């Protein structure tokens, strides 16, 4: 029973891992895999001296950093507020609505934002002009495009990300709240002294998981939303590998870029798990 599954994983996951060796070769589709000459670290030297890659790496880190700083705390705040909501019907309705965007593809969400932010009848620019401001070409302006990326990512995933925290609330012993109320603690004090410490391990765990994907700044999102005008601020490792590899067919070099990302991510996850085990006595695995 195991054989088909193992064969699939060997073929579709492990063969490409072996294929990484082309990062150390001058791979040419005509000479083939085995006959392409070994070139050692050449492509990595190119990578580290390339101004292109420096820009791409900077974009990746900046976008990821902004997403973490702004979008990581948001679902925690929303979950805390939902938790204080006593009207169950209202609460469930809100949950149903805010979970929805998670199930839509980036193509749909990207299209939705292009439409909302369009300079050509988009509702946001309509509101801006109504308030006497200049319309903004959100998708063509290097100074605002990153904000578009972060806002749309927040719009899509914040609601859904509350689930983990909402589940964590249910594991807190209700006796603690009762005791706190007896001692005269108000809702704010209960939140600060019981709820937050109660979900702190989950927050830290989610944070560690998030750090592991710091070099994945949202390739699927950016591939839908960006365009050559804003490459300068939005070209990240994932999109760069796609264009250099499949567009310019620079196979060896883009494999090297991909490997660079994979190794760092792998290291971060392993380190994060080790840290979590040490300080929280609880790892991801």
């Amino acid at each position, binding site marked *: *029973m*195991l054989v*088909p*599954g*193992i064969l*699939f*994983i060997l073929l*579709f996951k*492990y*063969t*490409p*891992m072996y*294929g*990484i060796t082309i990062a150390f070769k001058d791979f040419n589709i005509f000479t083939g895999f085995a006959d392409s000459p070994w070139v050692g670290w050449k492509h990595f030297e190119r990578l580290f001296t390339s101004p292109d890659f420096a820009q791409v790496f900077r974009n990746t880190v900046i976008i990821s950093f902004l997403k973490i700083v702004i979008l990581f705390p948001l679902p925690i705040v*929303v979950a805390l*507020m*939902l938790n*204080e909501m*006593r009207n169950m019907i209202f609460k469930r309705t809100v949950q*149903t609505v*805010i*979970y*929805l*965007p998670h*199930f*839509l*593809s*980036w*193509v*749909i969400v*990207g*299209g*939705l934002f*292009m*439409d*909302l932010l369009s300079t*050509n*009848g988009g509702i946001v*620019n*309509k509101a801006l002009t109504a308030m006497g401001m200049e319309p903004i070409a959100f998708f063509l302006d290097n100074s605002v495009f990153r904000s578009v990326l972060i806002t749309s990512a927040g*719009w899509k995933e914040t*609601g859904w990300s509350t*689930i*983990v925290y909402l*589940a964590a609330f249910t594991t807190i012993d209700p006796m603690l709240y009762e005791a706190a109320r007896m001692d005269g603690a*108000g809702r704010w004090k209960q939140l600060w002294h019981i709820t937050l410490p109660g979900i702190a391990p989950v927050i830290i765990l989610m944070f560690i998981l998030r750090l592991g994907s710091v070099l994945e700044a949202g390739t699927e999102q950016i*591939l839908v939303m960006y*365009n050559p005008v804003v490459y300068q601020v939005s070209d990240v490792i994932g999109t760069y*590998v796609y264009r250099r*590899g*499949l567009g310019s067919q620079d*196979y060896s070099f*883009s*494999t090297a870029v*991909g490997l660079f*990302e*994979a190794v760092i*991510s*792998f290291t971060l*996850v392993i380190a994060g798990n080790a840290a979590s085990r040490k300080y929280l006595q609880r790892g991801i695995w």
Partner: protein
Amino acid sequence: MDHKQALEGLQPRGVIKTSFSEKCFTVFNYVFFILLGLTTLLPFVNLLAKSLSSESAVISGRVGLLPVGLQFETYHYVLQDSMFLNSLKVSIALTVIGTACSLFLTTLTAYPLSKVRLRGRKGILLIFVFTMLFSGGLIPTYLLMQNLNLVNSFPVLFLPAMVNVYNMLIIKNYFEGLPEELEESAKLDGAGNVRILMSVMLPLSLPVLATIGLFFAVAFWNDYFTAMIYISDPAIKPMQLYLKELLVSSSGDFLKDNIDAAINTTPQSIQASSILLATIPILLVYPFLQKYFVKGVLVGSVKG
């Protein structure tokens, strides 16, 4: 004495004060969530209005939440467009076939791995889990597909995704939670492994299978990336890829040339209606999605 009474008299007022601030918070909370809900929903309303508005209204930007110059020609146009319909067919085929094959293979793999008596279980699990942490990357995978002659073929859209390790672990954990005795007694009755899986384990695992089936279905329906990498043949482009090209092409005036001048519509309206049509299937199954996805995430986060 008076002094003390005065203090006690203050006490209830203090309580009223906190409850007043709590009331403020409650009101704030309602307002916040109503706004949040509207932020989520209004873009769709706006899109719907645009898809139903007349050409002149859309171009002059007069469309807000209600259609201006109501027309249904856009939907008529999109639903007759052979490219759209074909991509819809491809997406439906992909979702059905992909989900069925993936669910089958993932369950088949999860079952033996849920048995502690399996020799080399830890090692085999490690082989699977390692692929979650490290991968060959885009280019080596693309070259593999090229070698397998899978580029520009329909199966490439689901074959590589068939064993999903995360989903497999969820099913495995569920199997591990089922009582051992059931299997023992089936074995005493002379049932083999396949028989046990089919007639004992599977009927008991319907909730988790439904969850994972939906995971797969949504992933296949929403995936545009795989198609973008491997598919250039318009006959097998799934809807998400078709939509993506539609969005990008609006600036390239591809649509304007193709739209019959007699039709009272715009590229924006066509985009809007196509986006909404692609969203409808998700909305139709959304009640199930919400229910099962929440369960799936919780199972995954507890044990994964």
